[in-house]
């Protein structure tokens, strides 16, 4: 049992409405599993590889039973050799397959950046569009229970600087399923950013196969006074903050960009045009974060709408401490978003 399960099991069961309604409620984890299942079923080119993808736990349940259903050729365990395994997935993609490569922790992505950045992301451009790399790399960031500095990183900020790569970071079960399907059918390398604390959230998810456009954000809650852009798990915190702000008479607009690269600049600028205030919440360390990039875009393209300084709510620039006390101090929460919003609106 992966240790973060200890922590995740203690979380509240957070329900995210999403932009879809219906009568079928799934967890994020099951939504992902369904997207993989349906993709394996409909497209023989799709396969899944990674450490432990075929084991009993099935990557926190997201690949559970898939080997039994689709065979050991299409869902298989790999040696612990992230860089080459990524390159092998890339090669298979070049030959026309659609690999999904899974890192049980985002930290392990760091071992594979040569293949992901120097190779996968550049191949299409470097060869004038003649070879494509339709690859999905799933990474899961952990949090809590002393995951520590080497098992809890959220380094999506680093990857923003990589041309040729797409990055999606769905926060709801609906988006998880839809964006997984989009990532699989996309002809480019797509980094699929998950957060362990999202696996348990629930929401409405249609049974049929559907995709969500890569590059399009979504407004989760409409508001007038302040825009909160929330990345990945921070959407949960942002929605909680918005609820509380409402009680204090502050109307917050909550936006989930869903795709981090290429970013939906339109949804951002339009919201800031309305509210004039911008808070960006990211799961990673502040400096060089996705929040920094969004702030830069806003400062460039929505400057004249801004009434107040842009605020980033992120982890501080320290490795993740293991101590529970320090973890608590390290991770930003709804409280921090709430406090920033209040000070932006009231002061």
């Amino acid at each position, binding site marked *: *049992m*992966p*240790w973060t399960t*200890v922590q995740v099991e203690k979380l509240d069961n957070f329900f995210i409405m999403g932009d879809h309604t219906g009568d079928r409620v799934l967890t994020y984890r099951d939504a992902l599993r369904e997207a993989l299942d349906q993709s394996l079923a409909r497209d023989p080119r799709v396969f899944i590889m990674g*450490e*432990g993808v075929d*084991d*009993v*736990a099935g990557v926190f349940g997201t690949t559970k039973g898939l080997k039994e259903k689709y065979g050991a050729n299409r869902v298989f*365990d*790999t*040696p*612990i*050799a992230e*860089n*080459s395994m990524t390159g092998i997935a890339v090669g298979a993609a070049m030959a026309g397959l659609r690999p999904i490569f899974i890192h049980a922790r985002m*930290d*392990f992505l760091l*071992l594979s950046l040569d293949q992901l950045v120097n190779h996968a992301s550049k191949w299409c451009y470097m060869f004038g569009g003649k070879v494509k790399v339709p690859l999905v790399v799933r990474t899961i960031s952990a949090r809590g*229970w*002393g*995951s*520590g*500095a*080497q*098992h809890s990183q959220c380094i999506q900020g680093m990857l923003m600087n990589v041309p040729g790569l797409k990055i999606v970071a769905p926060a709801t079960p609906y988006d998880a399923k839809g964006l997984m399907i989009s990532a699989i059918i996309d002809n480019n390398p797509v980094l699929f950013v998950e957060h362990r604390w999202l696996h348990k959230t629930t929401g409405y998810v249609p049974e049929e196969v559907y995709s969500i456009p890569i590059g399009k954000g979504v407004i989760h809650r409409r508001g007038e006074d302040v825009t909160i852009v929330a990345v990945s798990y921070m959407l949960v915190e942002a929605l909680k903050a918005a609820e509380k702000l409402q009680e204090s008479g502050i109307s917050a607009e909550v936006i989930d960009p869903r795709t981090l690269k290429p970013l939906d600049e339109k949804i951002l600028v339009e919201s800031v045009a309305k509210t004039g205030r911008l808070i960006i919440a990211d799961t990673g360390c502040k400096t060089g974060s996705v929040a920094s990039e969004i702030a830069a875009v806003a400062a460039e393209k929505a400057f004249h709408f801004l009434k107040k300084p842009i605020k980033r709510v992120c982890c*501080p*620039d*320290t*490795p993740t*401490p*293991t*101590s*529970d*006390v*320090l973890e*608590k*101090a*390290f991770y930003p929460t709804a409280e921090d978003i709430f406090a920033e919003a209040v000070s932006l609106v009231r002061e």
Partner: protein
Amino acid sequence: MEKSKWMEMYRIMRLIRLVEQRINDEYKYDEIKTPIHLSIGQEAVAAGVCIHLRKDDYIFGTHRSHSQYIAKGGDIKKMIAELYLRKTGCARGRGGSMHLVDPEVGILGSSAIVGGNIPLGTGTALASKLLNNDRVTVVFFGDGAVDEGTFHESLNFAALKKLPVVYVCENNFYAINSHQLSRQVGDNIYKWAQNYGMPGFQIDGNDVLEVSDYAEKAISRCRNGEGPTLIECLTYRWKGHIGTVDDVGEGYRPREEYEYWVSKCPIKRFSEFLKDQGVLTDELIKKIDQEIYDLIEEAFSFAQNSPKPSPDELMDFVYAD
């Protein structure tokens, strides 16, 4: 080997076992808020190797390094305090079980990135060479780490420069739930040494005397400037990969395999040997256990009564002064 060292090895193995069991027992209270990877069943490796190390020699461990920390002489109170994430912990609560450290006895840290510590230990060995001292480094790693390119890159460099480093692979056949044979071709990790022109051995990692024997030679080769050695110790972990869970039976490890290895308990085996040799008695066993229980009691009580770090220390140590 002098017989006094036998007893020391016995004591260390027993210490590792009892510390691990106590951790296992305490874990359910959710006060050890950090992932743990227990070494029960693998005690002979760390004990047999570290007995030959000096205080100023270096070791590097992995996520599963309680045993090595203890065998190298790391402070037990600070170790348990670290598991309890206290300010008094060896890493001041910032590391947890996977990141034990005690520079005073040459433990410069351990890495929870599989294969990550192999270059590091090769680097301290490089330092010994450049500083022209005779400090030896031992890097402990699992069979999983052999999958990583760092294993080869490091061994190549160490062999090329004849560095004073001993690579000790604790082959317990599994990386989480993945068996060695589903990740590697062949089951002869030690053979890699051959191509690097260094001695390589596959030995019974549950036989502390055999481990000690091979380690002694490898370490003295290092001290004499004769370069690195690779020792593959076949052993087995009794507990599941992580925490206190059970991973024996249906879909996991075969029960017979598990039972076979439990029957080959390194401590039972060595204590029987020592009894045969007439240096260990049931009485002595009890006495040693009692001393260890006292030590453990003291360590847990120290840990449990130690203060946690305070939130305002969050930003300390990001950079060294």
